């Protein structure tokens, strides 16, 4: 077990290095950099020549790619993710507070997703093939069948404009409400599906029939006997969802004005600001890789019957 753990941890290193290399490769493919992106449309090259040269020199953008790569890695070793050309602030500062906002959104949305998803999964499993099943499935599939931005705009129009339950520009905790609910509904579908199938599988098992024969009530059967076992599978899915969501649900963030790293990624792309983009890639993929690792290890720890190779 320990050897497996060490091996898995070591294996994350080539993945991260691979990601960094791919990022730098992409950078060399894209014709504009942050400096030209800043000037274009406002200042012609003739006017801006000197200013552009100054900026390139200051941020090291006039160096060959391997020099830039070397500098970047060296900076990483003491926690420096570089400085953004556009905002002139350290990348770590830019990403830092945005990441917290993404965390807030992610976990609140997951709460909603669990509530809606698990509930509809239970209902659907309990009354398989009935109209209740179809209804519960419809609700759970609703979020995942709409294009995210259409859904987001719809939610804003319904709740802020038509029903007026929330102001159009909410502040404080109210600002978290709509994006979390929207994202939660979108992420509920996989949870509903897994809950439904896990519940179905468990409800069909021998010991369930035995419990029913003993006279255990329906609700107790569902909630106290079947559900906890089904939740293991749900937990795995949730873990993977967190990993994915922490890269930022950028559409939700942009439309609701929730300043997380997804929205930052969209802006960084517009700005062609590679320092920020690299930082987000690093943090996003780093989180995903770490989380995957933790889940894999937890899974093998909880259920030693699972062969390591099928992870």
């Amino acid at each position, binding site marked *: 077990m320990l050897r497996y753990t060490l091996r898995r941890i070591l294996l994350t290193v080539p993945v991260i290095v691979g990601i960094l290399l791919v990022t730098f490769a992409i950078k060399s493919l894209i014709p504009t950099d942050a400096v030209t992106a800043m000037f*274009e449309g406002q200042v012609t090259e003739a006017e*801006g020549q000197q200013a552009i040269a100054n900026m390139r020199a200051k941020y090291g953008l006039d160096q060959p790619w391997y020099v830039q790569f070397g500098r970047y890695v060296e900076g990483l070793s003491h926690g420096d993710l570089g400085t953004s050309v556009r905002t002139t602030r350290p990348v770590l500062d830019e990403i830092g507070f945005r990441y917290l906002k993404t965390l807030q959104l992610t976990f609140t949305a997951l709460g909603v997703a669990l509530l809606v998803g698990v509930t509809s999964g239970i209902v659907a499993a309990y009354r398989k093939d009935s109209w209740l099943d179809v209804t519960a499935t419809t609700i759970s599939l609703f979020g995942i069948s709409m294009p995210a931005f259409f859904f987001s705009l719809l939610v*804003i129009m319904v709740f802020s404009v038509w029903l*007026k339950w929330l102001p159009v*520009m909410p502040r404080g905790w109210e600002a978290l409400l709509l994006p979390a609910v929207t994202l939660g509904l979108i992420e509920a579908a996989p949870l509903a599906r897994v809950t439904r199938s896990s519940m179905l599988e468990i409800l069909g098992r021998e010991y369930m029939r035995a419990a029913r024969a003993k006279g255990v009530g329906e*609700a107790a059967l569902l909630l106290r006997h079947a559900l906890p076992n089904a939740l293991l599978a749900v937990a795995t899915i949730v873990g993977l969802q967190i990993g994915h969501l922490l890269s930022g649900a950028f559409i939700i963030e*942009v439309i609701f004005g929730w*300043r997380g790293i997804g929205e930052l990624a969209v802006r960084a792309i517009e700005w062609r600001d590679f320092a920020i983009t690299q930082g987000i890639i690093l943090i996003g993929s780093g989180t995903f890789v770490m989380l995957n690792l933790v889940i894999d290890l937890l899974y093998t720890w909880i259920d030693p019957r699972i062969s390591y190779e099928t992870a």
Partner: protein
Amino acid sequence: MFRRMVLLAATLGCLVAPAWRTPARAAPARAADTVLHFRLGEDPETLYNIKSLSLTVNSVLGAYLLERLVYFDATGTPQPWLATGWTVSDDQKVVTFKLRSGVVFSDGTPFNAAAAKSQFDLVLDKANASPLLSRLGTLRKVEAPDPTTLVFSFSAPYAPFFANIAQAGFGFNSPTAIAKSGDQYGRNPVGTGPYMLKSWVPGTEITLVRNPHFQQFRGDALNKGAPYASQVVLTVISEEAVAQAALESGELTAANVAADAIDRMVQNPQFHTVINKVVTNLYFVEFNETHPPFNDPAMRQAVSFAINRDAVVKAAFNGYAHTANDPLANGIPGYDAAIGAKYGPTFDPAAAKALLAKAGWTPGPDGKLVKDGKAAMFSLKSYSGFEVVDRTLSVIQSNLADIGIGTKIETADWGSFYPSLLKPDWDIDLMRWTSSDPSILSLLFRSPGHRKATLENAAQDDILDRCNTLMDQKARTACVGEAQISLLQTATIAPVASDWVVIFTQANVKDYNLDFFNNLIPGDIQVAE
């Protein structure tokens, strides 16, 4: 049992939901405590003007926080603001300003020639890598011989100077504050403007309060005293639909509105409409002159005559724009309507067809023209992400098809489109440019041109170069007039339209005034009960 649980949950849900109803936040109405709510399309990446060219950054700094040496009045002439007057030397290479005394930054430190000099020195300093350096042209050094005198020395006359220093980029920051905040100054700007920064929730909201040290020196301001509104809150809303909704719910005091929503709101008595038709933007068509057929001025003229500018204004801008037949937008000093009327293009497909026929194009199969065995099929490029551009392209495509020219529309986001014009494989593009100074003509069209696609034309280049060296306004205007005529005669540019600035304010808002460059003068705004 299960069914009962479901019902219970549903009932509870229905009871709880309406309790979340919160009334929309409207501006409080007490006159002494008025708060203005405005929208920003994006969060400013910094509020340190020397680090940025962004329009959002400059609009926030320029309207509320920082003041400049001069402003431009309604006739497009520079007027004293923080300067009281200036002289230009005989060789036109030295400009000397006299500064106002008694002006104080919001942190209490004095504004004087030394403070002003430090602003320009920071831009000139290579180590700061300021993008604003591009707007100082041939400036060599700035000197402050005494606290109210500022001397600019240029290596060659630089005509765009006055227009440039009137922009927010050269608004004055308190040197003391810069020294104190260091790297963090971009989050804590300090200026002499009517408001000062109270708080900034990054990405969401900027709150400004009255600057107690402020004195109004602008001649074009209606309110000569302290601003009427005590606070200004700028909220970042990136989605158009959401911004419109916020305006309608009363949460925004005023906002720009996309062309298509204007009709609906103009009828609505809840709003006042402020339309500014004197603008500095221009949509125009330009050509790749480095290879046939658009190296031939007759071809370019033909395209220019084929475009139905009225249709563009109607379809793309919903009527909230005006047609342009002059290479300068009507808000740029030096614009001359008479030139456009006399030398500019009109909608004349017949003339276009005649020009094409004379150039050797004959009607071919399926309605397209043919010359030397090749059908008339050209690439029409522009930038993506804006419906007005897409619609303008569609209209132009249709207009050109009517005279037998086929076009293939290619759009890409600005960051891909603009560099792609340096490659020779395009024919026609639709461009939009905003500028406050007529030097834009030489920047774009003096050969080899901003995309290296303009052929050398000694006479035209000569005029354009000369215009940039004339510091005397009358002489410069005359020269710029010649430049416009030349550009129209060679059809280097086919102007299309300029869109208007349309702003809706709540009905109880008075004196929402914009200056010559369409920047807000916030101190004038009053909100009635």
